[in-house]
């Protein structure tokens, strides 16, 4: 039987005038998997998910959802997909409840479902508020709630937390993590927040200029790039003279005036004890210590020379 993918896409291309928005990409999604498409603005994430959603036609390539071509039966496709766009302006003077009820009628869902969904995204208090009076976070939660009306097998969220404050972002993450545990939903998430990708997703795909640069779990991505962990610390005591470099493996760079040190560790398990032993030998007392793990942003930087938050040139 082999691996049965919920979504299996091969050789996807989509060009707009001169821009290659998606430039030869293979994508698959397994059941229950949370996948992040991480990349800066203009990386082609939205175009890719829009092709999967069936609202854009690829110039080349094929997308199979549960083994069937997208164009075969769109109504059936939308029966199992839950979609939330980067931004949806709901009807302004229609309440949260009425909006959910409208969409519930599209899915032929009973009235009880409306309350359940509103509860799930924590909008009970705002049930009777016009959508125009919702905050950005509440609006995104409404959009998320609507995408959950059909208990979707696959949830596709396009930048669900862009522009939200940390609390509002956290609230959406909590909802998504709960879904993963309880419902076994699969998720495709686009984001340019590396924290979001690492918090939520099992697999992260780093995307830039229409291509996949790398994919895997956070640790495998970081490991693959051989990015060192970094220890930053301050000490009291006499830093050994004329000896910037320790004779053992890890290298310490000293700022003697401030009593600060920085040490890159290729292998934390062996390098960390060596570092502490060295400090003890030289009678250096630690004042503070910080262990910095490499981030996806570092990975992205080392791959493209740009940061995730930068606009593409």
């Amino acid at each position, binding site marked *: 039987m082999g691996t049965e993918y919920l979504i299996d896409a091969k050789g996807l291309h989509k060009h707009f005038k001169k821009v290659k928005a998606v430039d030869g990409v293979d994508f698959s999604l397994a059941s229950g998997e949370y996948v992040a498409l991480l990349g800066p603005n203009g990386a082609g994430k939205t175009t890719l998910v829009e092709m999967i959603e069936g*609202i*854009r036609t690829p110039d080349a390539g094929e997308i199979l959802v549960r083994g069937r071509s997208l164009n075969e039966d769109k109504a059936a496709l*939308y029966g199992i*997909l839950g*979609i939330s766009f980067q931004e*949806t302006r709901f009807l302004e003077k229609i309440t949260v409840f*009425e909006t959910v009820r409208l969409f519930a*009628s*599209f899915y032929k869902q009973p009235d009880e479902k409306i309350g359940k969904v509103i509860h799930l995204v924590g909008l009970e208090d705002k049930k009777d508020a016009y959508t125009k009076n919702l905050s950005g976070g509440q609006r995104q939660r409404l*959009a998320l709630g609507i995408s959950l009306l059909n208990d979707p097998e696959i949830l596709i969220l396009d930048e669900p937390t862009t522009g939200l404050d940390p609390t509002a972002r956290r609230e959406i993450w909590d909802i998504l993590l709960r879904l993963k545990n309880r419902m076994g939903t699969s998720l495709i998430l686009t984001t340019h927040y590396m924290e979001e990708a690492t918090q939520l997703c099992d697999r992260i795909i780093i995307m830039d200029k229409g291509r996949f640069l790398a994919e895997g779990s956070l640790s495998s991505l970081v490991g693959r790039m051989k990015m060192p962990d970094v220890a930053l610390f301050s000490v009291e005591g006499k830093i050994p003279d004329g000896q910037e470099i320790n004779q053992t493996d890890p290298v310490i760079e000293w700022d003697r005036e401030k009593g600060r040190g920085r040490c890159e560790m290729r292998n934390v398990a062996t390098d960390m004890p060596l570092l502490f032993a060295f400090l003890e030998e030289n009678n250096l007392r630690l004042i503070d210590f910080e262990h910095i793990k490499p981030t996806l942003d570092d990975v992205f930087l080392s791959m493209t020379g740009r940061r995730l938050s930068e606009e593409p040139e």
Partner: protein
Amino acid sequence: MKMRRNELWQLIIIHFKELLREPGVLFWGIGFPILMAWGLGIAFTGKKETKKDIAVVNFGADNKLSAFLKDHAVMDNSGWYLLTVNDQVFGKNLFRFKPLDSLDATLGVKRGIYQLMIDNKGDSTVFHLDPANPEARLLQLQISTLIGERHEDDTFSGANIIPLEVRGTRYIDFLVPGLIAMNIMMACMWGMSWTIIERRKGNMLRRMMVTPVRRQNILLGLMTARISMNFVEAVLLMVFARIYFDIQIQGSLTALIMVFVAGNLAFTGIAILTSSRTSNTEVGNGIINFVNMPLMILSGVFFSYHNFPEWSIPVIQNLPLTLLADSMRSIINEGAGVAAVLDKTLIMSLIGIVTFGLGLKMFKWY
């Protein structure tokens, strides 16, 4: 309860709620057309009492007009000579004569205060007026009749004038059906086109499309809500016209409903065609005006289109707004029945079906 879960039903009531929660809708949709009918009706319909101001030069000299005014008119505080004439034909007329020197009188005429200036010269009375101004001409005739100065060539005699009092011949009779027709066009073009463009722009249309909803229901819901609203607006305008201007539907009600439905069909079709592509409200604004403006000007809503060149009349008569206004007029004012408006109804329906089909083919859903 099954009804409440029906997607079309939900789409219809959502549009209704949107409309009714916007206070402006009630005013612009219902209040404004009524105000317009009232205002224009008052301005152009025969008033019961008319007031006419006339400048008199060389007053007081020994002449016919001075003698006449001194005998028959009342002088008020500001030196006007007032003369009220109850005329069976023209209703109550108040003539106000103002004695002036010729300089002031001429100035008054130039400024449009007086349409007629009378200069007394001995025995003769000289009238100064713009011959192209029919009102001034009429005033001159009235005054000459009053003072017995009618000339032989003035064959037009007050006694022989038959006033137009037959229902359906007043300006307001012409206006009200035109206003209803225009209202339908405006409501469809702005109410539907604009709504569709806004929804496309805000991703709402696309959000609805990525559900199993049937796409025809999205449009059908919008159309149903809009047409029902148009119906309410038209009925209220008719009721007002009935009460205030005594306009009655002289023809067949069935025919009127037929024409109403066909007209709505035509304009909802046109609305869907005009809003089929763009997601830019400014472009939408332009397109909507591009359709509305020529129809407003050409279709004779406010004034008859028969003043346009002969060759253009057949074209104008087949424009959707003209078809709707003309067929409504013929039913309301001329007592037409179903048969008389059948061809116009068919053409409007055809326009609706063709534009709807074309719009649907081009329609950008995502």
